[in-house]
């Protein structure tokens, strides 16, 4: 707030005071007071008026300054009215009270929503853990059946498991409380575990898996990265072409390590590439092959952002797709 702004806001008051002074002067002239006295009175009046206005200006300015500082320091800005001292003036206090009531209702709504979200996440996580018990049991039981049936059932169970896992990570990615632990891991181990999780799906789609130069160490959360790699494998399976191959390779670029997962599948049209990380974007491949939810790459991007891993995609229609994860190396 500048002095000019302050003054223009009080223009009405200044005008009324001037009129008042003019009326008083007129009255004094009419009653025969000496011009010198009138001038003196007028000067005194002007001085007092200017002094009160100036003091008002500086008081308001310093208070605003104080409030700004409180706002600046606050992590949750909507808690502002809870952290501000009560104003002294009656009218201001009434206004403040109203604003505080509005703020409280907002805080209540926000905290209700946060609780609901946390409870929902807990429920989803609990559900995911519950469903894993029968999936495990089914996996063990079908081991005793004939090879052909076992293989088919194992693939279906693998598919169920992949969907369940995605639900879990969706709940985790959308929740503000992130549960990850950054540790030193070797890329080959991450790739191997992602492959292990999808072995039934990979084997039966006849995909050859290649791994090159993955003996490099990175600092990251292995569970999340294994999930991301799993999503990329699922895409490679779903959008595979003739003689499918999926390959993992790593390269060091200065302080970064780039892990690339590439396939020789049907690829992605160039004009769709900028949107593949969008939530729910299925594109022409998703429409032609079906079963796409547009969530896989969205989740990859989301999780990668949380872990501060860069993620890039390149693709040629009919030739294949390559997704690169950029880690800062150990």
């Amino acid at each position: 707030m500048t002095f000019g702004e302050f003054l223009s806001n009080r223009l009405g008051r200044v005008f009324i005071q001037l009129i008042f002074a003019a009326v008083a002067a007129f009255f004094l002239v009419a009653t025969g007071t000496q011009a010198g006295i009138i001038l003196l009175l007028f000067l005194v009046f002007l001085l007092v008026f200017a002094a009160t206005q100036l003091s008002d200006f500086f008081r308001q300015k310093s208070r605003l300054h104080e409030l700004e500082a409180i706002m600046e320091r606050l992590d949750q800005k909507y808690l502002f009215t809870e952290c501000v001292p009560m104003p002294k003036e009656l009218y201001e206090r009434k206004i403040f009270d109203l604003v505080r009531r509005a703020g409280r209702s907002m805080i209540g709504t926000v905290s209700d929503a946060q609780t609901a979200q946390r409870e929902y996440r807990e429920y989803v996580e609990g559900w995911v853990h519950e469903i894993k018990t029968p999936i495990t049991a089914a996996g063990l039981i079908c081991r005793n059946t004939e090879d052909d049936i076992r293989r088919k059932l194992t693939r279906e169970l693998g598919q169920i498991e992949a969907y369940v896992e995605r639900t879990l990570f969706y709940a985790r990615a959308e929740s503000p409380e992130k549960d990850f632990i950054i540790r030193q891991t070797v890329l080959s181990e991450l790739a191997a575990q992602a492959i292990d999780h999808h072995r039934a799906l990979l084997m039966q789609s006849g995909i050859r898996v290649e791994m090159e130069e993955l003996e490099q160490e990175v600092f990251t959360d292995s569970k999340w990265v294994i999930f991301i790699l799993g999503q990329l494998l699922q895409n490679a399976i779903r959008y595979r072409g003739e003689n499918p191959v999926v390959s993992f390779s790593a390269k060091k670029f200065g302080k970064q390590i780039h892990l690339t997962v590439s396939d020789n599948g049907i690829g992605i049209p160039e004009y769709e590439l900028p949107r593949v990380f969008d939530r729910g974007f299925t594109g022409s491949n998703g429409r032609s092959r079906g079963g796409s939810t547009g969530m896989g790459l969205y989740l990859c991007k989301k999780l990668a952002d949380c872990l501060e891993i860069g993620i890039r995609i390149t693709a040629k229609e009919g030739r294949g797709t390559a997704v690169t994860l950029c880690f800062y190396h150990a």
Partner: protein
Amino acid sequence: MQKIMIIEDDSAIREELVLLLKNEGYCPFPVVDFTDIPKQAKQLCPDLILLDIGLPGQDGFSLCADLRRSGAFPVIFVTSRDSNLDEVRALSLGGDDYITKPYNVPVLLARIKAVLRRGGGALEAPDVLESQGLRLNLTKGIVSAGTNSVLLTRNELQILACLMEHGGGIVSRENLIEMLWSSRIYIDDNTLSVNVTRLRGKLAELGLPDLIKTRRGMGYQL
């Protein structure tokens, strides 16, 4: 025989684990009464405990601490909870390994074998396989017949080892591929054919060109 104590509240999984471990030559002891498990463990003195964290009425973590106090049994946690926090907690409480459900069977067996081996007293897996006049040294990757020997690649070694372990039985291509994937050799059908052809070539150098027979529509046989 090595005793494995199974602490798992889901009866279907428990029964299947018993069957599985029996087939693998272990001696499984399922726990059905979940009161005072440490005492039961003390009486049994198992070589390994498979412990489910989500037991009814009690916390698997505190149970593990109790088990640790009653004896130095290796413990593998088997759980459907896979948050990082749970894993760190389990391992800091002295668990030897942590497997999340749903596990695939080969992985589970490999982990069990690894922990038992670490605990010592375990039978070392045989280093040399012998069958039909063929000697396969697994650590050196050398196969020999009589005085001649040939060096094998990792893939060829695993294929031959698998065929030899089946002692003349037919091994289907799919099973062979599954077995190779368990050893982290991610091979497809064509590559398998190529590898078998190469392996046959090497065996021919030893004077055994027709050792691996192709059984059309069924698989390979030694």
